[in-house]
């Protein structure tokens, strides 16, 4: 393992210098000649019917170039989820109703932002206010206001990919009001297993909506070229091909007539994958005015109108044997997806998919509901369901351990899945370091010494400390549009190479890790790799930087493309060197040599020249591709959880030590530990960086972060009032990398950077319980909740 030249090394980021010097161009930095500025008028009401919009005065304002409303785009529908079962329910501008505060009503393009802003104030809208509903459990009741009553028609996104046969089978479960998605999965016999259990426990947990807080606000620049009929867009996004597909459907244009250009992305965390109305409007306004149009959201709009993490209610009943072996689990999840479906049906599926690989639960029933309310829209956010469900399950397991007088660590150890296990859906765990992660994290947090559970409260002073632990898992890619990633490696005369990849570096370091894979496989230096990425015109398809697929899926595509280039290079070299057997040849540092006679060498340049001049003119271009999950034909069923999910699961164990101030209720995070099974670390600095980012976000969401909504109104749409972690909150951090070598991964690599946002929530909640002996069932764990639980207020 250790004889790699680049893999596993702490190679500095290849895009680091551009970013350190301010030269990296983000979407917000794009400025085109003649560019107009767009602004969006939004609904001040959570639920209302649109009666009339008068844009006359706005149209007449000098400097205004276009004003559009729902009338202009009546037919347009799109959505993150667009299947025969769940047809697209979003429109770029409201047509009949508005469904949350911030819903888009009209858009303006003008010569300056100030004029556009002024124009918005001149648009007159008449609304008929409708009764709203904000809590999902109320929205589910009979008689609750119905948020979506429109009829959907047309072909869904997935039908274009051959799922029309499912259409007949589709019927919405109408027993529940405002239902936007439903998942039901079961195996074994839970009733029987509960009867056989020595101990059962039922609990209810709740998590609030949280914000991504990408530092770069959402923005789009669109420029339509009417002569070529081509639309050029610059988007702050995580998946250029998915965005292009969404846009092509929404604008009813062939995908090839849209070009997404590369920009650096100032953070995404799941929140820049949906198609947003501002993106559609920028494109539409550019087509209408014939000028480039830029729309940049302000921070308040980002908080209110892009996406949030789903607030979720989890009810769990678990049955165990005396020794803590889990026999049965019955889980019910209710996710509030806000005024539109967002990723509702996906998150309720993933609460299952991202969690069931952790423990072996032989008898299991899982039911998820995603529900419309008049809150802001919820979509994917780092971990997408994993933080919520892992918090609930491991909080309850800690309670069970306490009830039975057992050590949580032992219970976890008894129940975790192992390498070689086959999951109920057929996914195989060909690498699984859960046990090693668990033991590593426990040791690093000093579990035996610090865990207070079994000691009397010797520390009864004002400040009390405790430790907790939790586990998590995550996919490494999945079958989602465009279902595969491909890569092209083009060699240059001087022996260096350009990598063409559709993957986008959103900060996770993919340009660097992919360069390492290329350099290692081909036998060149890191400085010899040039990256052309994130451009739909120049680059082959890619799944995008979500579902944690870049390392494994794109990584494999790059490795194959590099191997393909290398094979061609060696074939040319073999002819020159008079060698028949290619396996005798080795390539390193842009030089080819005979393994058994290292004196005999040839430079890459010579081999390339020979390939062009003496062979068939081939300048050597390597191709590679890899399916989202080679064993699966298509995506799994969200409703039934049937089908294969992912080729490899990343795992982590996370532990926390906290200090609780019993006077103020404030919880201080002293230390966090993450032991991550990422298969094999392509770049240790990057892996550790991903772990830090995850734990910081998870800790924020455990202790302070909450999108605070009252009657659909957002009360804290700014960084300070939202309270995400700042430097002063940084705890001591220990990370361990458990290298299990995933057989299907490039150089053994799999997921890192998403799963371990999830375990930290349960670890902190369990540590708080350990410190002060009370359980907090809802996140964030605010001082008020702690004091209440302690009976102090």
């Amino acid at each position, binding site marked *: 393992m250790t004889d790699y030249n680049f893999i596993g090394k702490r190679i500095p980021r290849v895009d680091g210098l551009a970013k350190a010097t301010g030269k990296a161009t983000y979407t917000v930095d794009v400025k085109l000649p003649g560019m107009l500025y767009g602004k969006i008028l939004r609904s001040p009401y959570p639920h209302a019917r649109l009666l009339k919009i008068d844009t006359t005065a706005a149209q007449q304002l000098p400097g205004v170039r276009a004003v559009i409303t729902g009338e202009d785009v009546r037919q347009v529908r799109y959505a993150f989820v667009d299947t025969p079962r769940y047809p697209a329910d979003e429109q770029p501008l409201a047509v009949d109703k508005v469904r949350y505060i911030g819903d888009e009503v009209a858009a303006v393009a003008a010569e300056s932002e100030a004029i556009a802003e002024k124009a918005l104030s001149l648009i007159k809208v008449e609304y008929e206010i409708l009764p709203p509903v904000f809590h999902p459990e109320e929205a589910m009741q009979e008689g609750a206001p119905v948020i979506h009553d429109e009829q959907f028609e047309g072909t869904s996104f997935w039908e274009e990919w051959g799922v029309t046969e499912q259409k007949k089978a589709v019927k919405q479960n109408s027993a529940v009001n405002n239902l936007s998605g439903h998942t039901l999965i079961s195996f074994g016999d839970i009733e029987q297993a509960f009867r056989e259990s020595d101990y059962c426990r039922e609990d209810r947990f709740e998590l609030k909506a949280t914000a991504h807080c990408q530092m770069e606000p959402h923005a789009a620049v669109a420029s339509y070229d009417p002569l070529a009929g081509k639309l050029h867009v610059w988007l702050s996004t995580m998946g250029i091909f998915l965005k292009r597909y969404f846009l092509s459907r929404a604008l009813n244009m062939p995908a090839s007539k849209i070009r997404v250009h590369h920009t650096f992305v100032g953070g995404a965390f799941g929140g820049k994958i949906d198609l947003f109305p501002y993106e559609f409007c920028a494109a539409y306004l550019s087509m209408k005015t014939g000028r480039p149009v830029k729309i940049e959201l302000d921070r308040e709009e980002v908080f209110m109108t892009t996406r949030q993490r789903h607030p979720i209610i989890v009810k769990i009943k678990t049955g165990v044997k005396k020794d803590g072996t889990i026999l049965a689990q019955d889980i019910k999840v209710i996710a509030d997806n806000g005024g539109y479906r967002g990723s509702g049906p996906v998150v309720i599926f993933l609460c299952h998919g991202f969690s069931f690989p952790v423990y072996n639960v032989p008898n299991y029933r899982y039911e998820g509901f995603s529900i419309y309310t008049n809150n802001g829209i919820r979509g994917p956010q780092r971990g997408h369901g994993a933080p919520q469900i892992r918090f609930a399950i491991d909080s309850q397991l800690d309670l069970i351990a306490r009830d039975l007088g057992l050590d949580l660590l032992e219970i976890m150890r008894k129940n975790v899945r192992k390498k070689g296990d086959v999951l109920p859906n057929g996914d195989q765990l060909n690498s699984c370091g859960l046990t090693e992660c668990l033991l590593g994290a426990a040791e690093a947090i000093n579990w035996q010494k610090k865990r207070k559970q079994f000691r009397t409260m010797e520390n009864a002073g004002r400040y009390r400390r405790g430790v907790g632990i939790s586990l998590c898992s995550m996919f490494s890619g999945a079958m989602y549009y465009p279902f595969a990633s491909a890569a092209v490696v083009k060699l240059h005369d001087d022996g260096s190479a350009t990598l063409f990849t559709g993957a986008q570096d959103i900060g996770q370091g993919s340009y660097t890790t992919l360069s390492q894979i290329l350099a290692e496989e081909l036998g060149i230096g890191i400085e010899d790799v040039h990256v052309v990425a994130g451009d739909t015109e120049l680059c082959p398809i890619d799944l995008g930087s979500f579902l944690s697929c870049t390392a494994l899926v794109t990584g494999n595509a790059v490795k194959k493309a590099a191997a393909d280039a290398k094979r061609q290079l060696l074939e040319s070299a073999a002819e020159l060197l008079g060698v028949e057997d290619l396996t005798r040849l080795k390539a390193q540092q842009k030089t080819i040599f005979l393994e058994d006679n290292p004196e005999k060498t040839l430079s890459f340049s010579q081999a390339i020249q020979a390939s062009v001049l003496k062979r068939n003119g081939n300048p050597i271009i390597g191709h590679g591709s890899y399916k989202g999950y080679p064993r699966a034909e298509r995506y799994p069923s969200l409703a039934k959880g049937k089908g294969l999910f992912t080729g490899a699961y990343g795992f982590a164990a996370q532990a926390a030590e906290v200090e609780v101030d019993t006077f103020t209720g404030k919880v201080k995070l002293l230390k966090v530990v993450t032991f991550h099974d990422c298969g094999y670390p392509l770049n240790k600095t990057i892996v550790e*960086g991903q772990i830090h980012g995850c734990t910081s976000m998870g800790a924020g969401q455990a202790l302070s972060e909450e999108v605070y909504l009252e009657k659909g109104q957002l009360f804290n749409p700014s960084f300070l009032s939202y309270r995400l972690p700042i430097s002063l909150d940084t705890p001591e951090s220990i990370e361990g990398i458990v290298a299990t070598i995933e057989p299907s991964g490039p150089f053994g690599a799999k997921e890192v950077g998403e799963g371990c946002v999830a375990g930290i929530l349960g670890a902190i909640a369990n540590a708080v319980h350990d410190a002060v002996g009370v359980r907090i069932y809802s996140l964030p764990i605010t001082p008020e909740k702690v004091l209440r639980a302690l009976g102090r207020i």
Partner: protein
Amino acid sequence: MKKKIRLIVNGEEKVLTIDVQQTLLEVLREDLGLTGTKKGCNQGECGACTVLLEGKPVSSCSLLAVKADGKAVTTIEGLAKGGQLHPIQQAFNEKGAIQCGFCSPGMILVTKSLLEQNPNPTTAEIKEAIAGNICRCTGYVQIIEAIRSLVP
């Protein structure tokens, strides 16, 4: 209302006619094309727009450009000299302190001012110095390490 102002930006004198309502951030980004200075919130809460005014860090989104009239402004573009990176830029890149990079210009400038005033900061002082600069990607760990690596 328009006004003429003079700024010394990264050592170069710039005379500009600007609207008196423009922030320093707008002037840097829009009028001078120095887009290395970022707008994360425009509310004075994130530090992405940090520049050095007479060597001291300020949030340029919360400062009217007319207030900087006659003063020296250092932006991230002014740090690397003659193709040579500043040691802080080098350290940030080597230690993994840069992920998406959107907070990096501000972070690097704040670090410069910190180390000029206090070449030997403790970890607590480092955390204090960057407390006004939000980074969502790194959890601050590698940023703090990068700054510590510059302390002799």
